[in-house]
């Protein structure tokens, strides 16, 4: 079931949580709403579910306008960050709740519950209470409960936010796997860009109640629409340069990006930590010279800080440990750095 969010606006008192938001979720896809806290992503999810009433705009499921439909008749599956399981009910009773409400026959309900229990890898836990489960198990019960009545759309609000890193990683892959199996249109909210990029078919980036960019993960990563997206996605160095109608300039480098405006304007140059490499000799161009002021190995990568010569500007660099070792660079050494990729945005835009 395709979800169409059209011109939704919603405010809490004087705080505008959503401002004319348009989002389309194609049928059967898995879409992530990504943004910092306060960006309106959870509010948008709750508007789709019917848990919040938008002041303006419409929500469509397929061709049906559901804006005025109450939550309980929208047939959505909603998974809450803190699970929101019914504490006095067992795992099976929790999963069966939506089926009981819909007066599904007992045998059909039991069958559905059993199939969900095995799908969610909760075998043998059917008679446990939520308080007797681990966080990851609770979240799987919440997911099973949401899926039991075969919802038209599945909505997840920071589903892995309350779990520890390892469990989160597992559940993330597992959710992707699950979605490939059942193909229900899914929207999930996260503030973790890695999570969004790993799981989703499409990512919608929200900031201050508005959509900054939406597209496939690759598209967003390779072609960020603006400086906010660039800054938010990935660990970037934000440097000052300038640009004119011919190119953009940073330090002694010339980068291919051009300003659409005439004349010289200040610009922000965004360079990802992974898009810089070092060399001992100056055999490649363009290069910049400087000194390594900090380096620390973190597992398979090295985090280093590179300070430009004749400047106070520092650039953070992340490179594979193998590469670092083969270069034989030490802290304090003068090196040559190559910039593999950079994004430049004129500062005018930054004012918004």
């Amino acid at each position, binding site marked *: 079931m395709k979800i169409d969010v059209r011109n939704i606006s919603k405010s*809490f008192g004087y*705080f505008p*949580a959503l401002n004319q938001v348009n989002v389309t979720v194609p049928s059967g896809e898995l879409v992530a709403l990504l*943004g*910092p*806290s*306060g*960006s*309106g*992503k*959870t*509010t948008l999810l*709750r508007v789709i*579910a*019917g*848990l*919040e009433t938008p002041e303006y705009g419409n929500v469509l499921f397929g061709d049906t306008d559901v804006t005025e439909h*109450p*939550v*309980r*008749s*929208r*047939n*959505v*599956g*909603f998974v*809450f*960050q*803190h*699970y*929101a*399981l*019914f*504490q*006095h009910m067992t795992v099976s009773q929790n999963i069966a*709740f*939506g089926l009981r*409400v*819909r007066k599904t026959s007992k045998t059909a309900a039991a069958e559905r519950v059993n199939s969900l229990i095995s799908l969610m890898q909760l075998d043998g836990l059917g008679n446990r*209470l*939520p*308080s*007797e489960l681990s966080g990851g198990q609770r979240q799987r019960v*919440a997911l099973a*409960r*949401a899926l039991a*009545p075969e919802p038209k759309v599945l909505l997840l*609000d*920071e589903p892995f936010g309350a779990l520890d890193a390892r469990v989160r990683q597992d559940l993330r892959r597992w959710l992707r796997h699950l979605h490939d199996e059942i193909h229900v249109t899914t929207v999930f909210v996260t*503030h973790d860009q890695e999570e969004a990029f790993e799981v989703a078919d499409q990512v919608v980036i*929200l900031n201050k109640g508005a959509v900054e960019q939406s597209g496939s993960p690759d598209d967003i990563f390779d072609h960020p629409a603006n400086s906010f997206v660039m800054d938010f996605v990935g660990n970037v160095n934000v440097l000052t340069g300038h640009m004119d109608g011919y190119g953009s300039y940073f330090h002694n480098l010339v980068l291919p990006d051009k300003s659409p405006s005439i004349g010289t304007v200040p610009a922000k140059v965004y360079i990802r930590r992974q898009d810089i490499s070092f060399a001992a000799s100056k055999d490649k161009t363009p290069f910049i010279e400087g000194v390594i002021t900090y380096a620390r190995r973190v597992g398979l990568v090295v985090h280093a800080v590179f300070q430009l010569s004749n400047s106070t500007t520092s650039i953070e660099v992340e490179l594979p440990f193998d590469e670092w070792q083969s270069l034989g660079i030490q802290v304090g050494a003068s090196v040559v750095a190559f910039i593999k990729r950079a994004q430049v945005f004129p500062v005018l835009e930054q004012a918004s």
Partner: protein
Amino acid sequence: MTMEHFAALTGAQAETAPRKAKNPLPGFGLSIGYTLTYLGILVLVPLSTIVFKTAAMPWREFWATISASRAIAAYGLSFVGALSAGAINCIFGTLLAWVLVRYRFLGRKLLDALIDLPFAVPTAVAGIALTAVWGPHGPIGEPLNNMGVQVAYARLGVLVAMVFVGLPFVVRTVQPVLDGLSADVEEAAATLGAGRVRTFFAVILPHMAPALFTGFALSFARALGEYGSIVFISGNMPGRTEITPLLIMTKLEQFDYRGATALAVVMLLASFAVLFMVNSIQWKRKSHSKSFATVPRVRSFLKG
């Protein structure tokens, strides 16, 4: 580590006694000692004198006292009244707690403070006030009287006084539990297709049940022991509106100490039985469902 190493290690460890776990809280021995002494002096000793006093009574005299028709009518009024008052307070106390927890309105704090008044007001004052309001010439009593419903100086009056004194218990036990129930549990029920009534009975009520049982027990116990306010409103007609505590008082005034203690023993055993029953229902529930984990309240717009 090879097997030999492992064996050597456990062998060395086996020679010394394993360390005992230390509890950071004060010792069990000390705390239970204080508890028992305290309970003994304050509760058990006074109550047991009632039993001892009665034990001196010949069995036939005891039986004749406790099974007199006037006494049986008094037990009936006391227990039926207190149980009904407990039940009524469960319904309206829950409603009050709900309103106080869920809604923000002008005068909420005042209403909240008002709930405790039945605790604080001297019972005689409450009795006089209730009689004035519900009496045949009172602002509520008169219209009711015209409709043929007599409240003051009738059994209904006893119930009114019992409901009055027991009200705070249910509100104060249910309030914190409702406060701790996060909104997302109700929202979850709604997304699963449940209507409001269903959400209340299937999700909220079971969550409140333990607190409701406790509130009921407290309210019942308070109503059963209430004396001061009831004697004003009931009219104290033997066999009709006379409660057991009043009958005991009457016997004391007639210097029939043994008769008074005999009735007291019946009250004591019966109320103990009721409270024990309520508690055992609670224990059953607890062993079935472990303590409820409290879920932090989530404000969606703050989270983004």
